[in-house]
């Protein structure tokens, strides 16, 4: 069995002369939580829709759970939560869930049993005969979430699942994602909230302007992007000789001294070893000298840069 839940190779998609996704390749391991990160308009939703075969790429191939995407046998094993939630507003909760479950190939008895379980779990049991538009927004989100997971999919794709969630529901979603991973399911979610991604994801892919910026396991991504930031703490503050070293632009690009610990950004051709040698040589009384692994938020800002920020990117939004 192929150990990839999703394998995208050389995919390209354009709309009306604008390229939404450019030569994208990525591999999502089975049983992992995978984050698709990028600013608004980066091509995340287009990528997800192509995985789901809702839209067809202009070039490249996509296989899902070891089969070509679009294969009916595969479609029924995927659960999808779109960015903009959608339910039939005039339908009763149970009927709309039954419809979504049966559309995934479940039989009536199984679907009803699972609906009962999920409604009880999310405290919606007494709402099952209500029409969707009688529910609050939060409850509708829960119903949509049940619709996504009702058929116990092997691959769960969540497009911006945290947007619009209150802290309690966000935590519930967090827990559910982790539980899915424990049960060996694969979860792909897109987000522009780096904190969530860092907390939940095993692997990530950052895309901007339709192009992959980087991808891989979170630990590896952080390690690969480490080495440029150094945390430095000195016992007796900075002496004149030390200040001179910190001001040397051939050695250090930027100093952030907002904390007790200084955050130094190494210059392009400088090395941590040379910096440490010079500091020791200048008689600095060092209590901490550490090559810091940057947060995803920081990596994102470094790699996507100001363009991403201008286009609505936020590490904490």
């Amino acid at each position, binding site marked *: 069995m192929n150990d990839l839940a999703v394998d995208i190779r050389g995919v390209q998609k354009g709309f009306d002369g604008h390229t939404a996704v450019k030569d994208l390749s990525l591999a999502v391991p089975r049983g992992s939580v995978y984050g698709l990160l990028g600013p608004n308009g980066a091509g995340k939703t287009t990528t997800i*829709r192509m995985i*789901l075969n*809702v*839209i067809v790429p202009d070039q490249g191939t996509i296989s899902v759970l070891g089969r070509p995407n679009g294969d009916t046998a595969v*479609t*029924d094993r*995927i659960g*999808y939560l*779109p960015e*903009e*939630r*959608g*339910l*039939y*507003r*005039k*339908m009763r909760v149970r*009927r709309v869930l039954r*419809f*979504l479950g*049966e*559309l*995934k*190939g479940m039989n009536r008895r199984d679907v009803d049993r699972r609906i009962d379980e999920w409604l009880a779990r999310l405290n919606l049991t007494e709402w099952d005969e209500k029409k969707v538009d009688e529910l609050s927004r939060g409850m509708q989100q829960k119903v*949509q979430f049940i*619709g996504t997971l009702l058929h116990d999919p092997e691959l769960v794709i969540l497009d911006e699942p945290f947007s619009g969630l209150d802290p309690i529901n966000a935590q519930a979603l967090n827990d559910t994602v982790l539980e899915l991973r424990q049960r060996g399911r694969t979860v792909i979610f897109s987000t522009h909230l780096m904190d969530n991604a860092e907390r939940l994801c095993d692997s990530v892919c950052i895309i901007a302007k339709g192009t992959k910026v980087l991808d891989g396991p979170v630990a590896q991504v952080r390690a690969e992007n480490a080495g440029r930031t150094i945390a430095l703490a000195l016992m007796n503050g900075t002496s004149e000789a030390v200040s001179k070293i910190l001001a040397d632009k051939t050695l250090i690009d930027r100093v952030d001294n907002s904390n007790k610990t200084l955050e130094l950004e190494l210059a392009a051709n400088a090395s941590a070893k040379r910096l440490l040698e010079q500091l020791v040589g200048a008689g600095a009384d060092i209590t901490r000298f550490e090559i810091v692994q940057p947060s995803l938020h920081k990596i994102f800002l470094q790699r996507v840069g100001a363009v991403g920020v201008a286009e609505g990117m936020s590490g904490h939004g």
Partner: protein
Amino acid sequence: MGKLGVVIRREYLERVRSRWFAFATILGPLFFGGVSIGQIVLASHAAVSADASHIIVIDATGTGLGKRIVDNLGAGVSMDTSKATLEAVPRDQLDSAEARALTDVMHAKYEGYLVLDAATLAGTAAVYNGRNASALQDIDHVRDVVRDAVLTERLVSAGLDPAQIRSLTKVPLQLHTERVTEHGLGGTGMSGALFGYMVAILLYITIVVYGQSIVRGVSDEKASRVSEVVVASAPPDTLLAGKILGVGGVAITQQLIWVFASAAIVFFRAPILRALGASETANIPLPGSISVAGGIELVLIFLLGFFFYAALFAAIGATVESQEDAQQASLPVTMLLVLSVMFVGPVFLAPTSMLSRVVSWIPFSAPIMMPLRLSLIQVPLIEIIGTIAGLAIANLIAIWFAARVYRVGILMYGKRRSFGEIIRWVRIS
């Protein structure tokens, strides 16, 4: 159950369960049954209103013409026993008598006044001025009575006995009409015509109402973003087909209920008509000679026509998100239907004409015109086959077109799309 079945069932059940469906299904037979029975009741009660006898007859002929008219006016179809008022005047007082009568009519003491003079006696002219001067049946009745009276007056002058005149001039002729088909005689022409007319209107209403329902359904799915969830589980073509078949099923269900309920009303018409004071034996427009094969042809043509329009309506729904846009965008297709209905009159009057044949071949008008002609006359088999084949081809094209527009359209949010853009969708998908 396959995905198509799941979609069909949702489309069907959600509509059939709605209050609107129950409302329209109950109102339909009441409306059509009511129209049929109402026609008979109205016809028997108000063939000629009593207004025709509530008039002044000013007779300046110096003969018995005025009295003869007064005697006959009241005994119209309504068997009104009241009599018109006769005012015999010498010729020189005619103007003042007319002025008085005019005042009386203006004060609503009478409905109108009839002036008889030498010209009337000569059979060339009479004058009637009245509040009911635009009531065609009343005026026809007055004219017939005056003409008969003038004729009788002339015959009496020629020396004939009045009793003999009555028996000679009374010709209560009724023209019985019957349709000729290739199987011989079948059904009264009039009942077939009324039935055909009702079928055409019913089909038109059904296509418009359910077509709009499809537009609303698709644009609602798009606006509420449900379509994205659904197309991630089932191909868009399945969703489109399920919608058209499901809504078609609702239309057929409703029509079957209408047909059976209307049949029940017709079957039990005797007590209903009795209660309304009309003759039980009155002629209700019945299908008469619709055979089983004819019925199948009719249903087949209607279904093909319905699917044809439904596909176009679904494509329109996929291009819009708001109800206002949906109304506007569906106007061109609705206009095609309205244009078809404009031909109902000409086809009704001359169902064998070249125009009638042409409009029953064109796919846009065929689903209404061919059933109308089938109800009116015996349409040659080759024409029926031609219509069905034409509609089938038109269906393939419409569904091909709709599937492409639908596939792209339901995921394109934002502004309403221009026709050029929609054509581009058809090319890219």
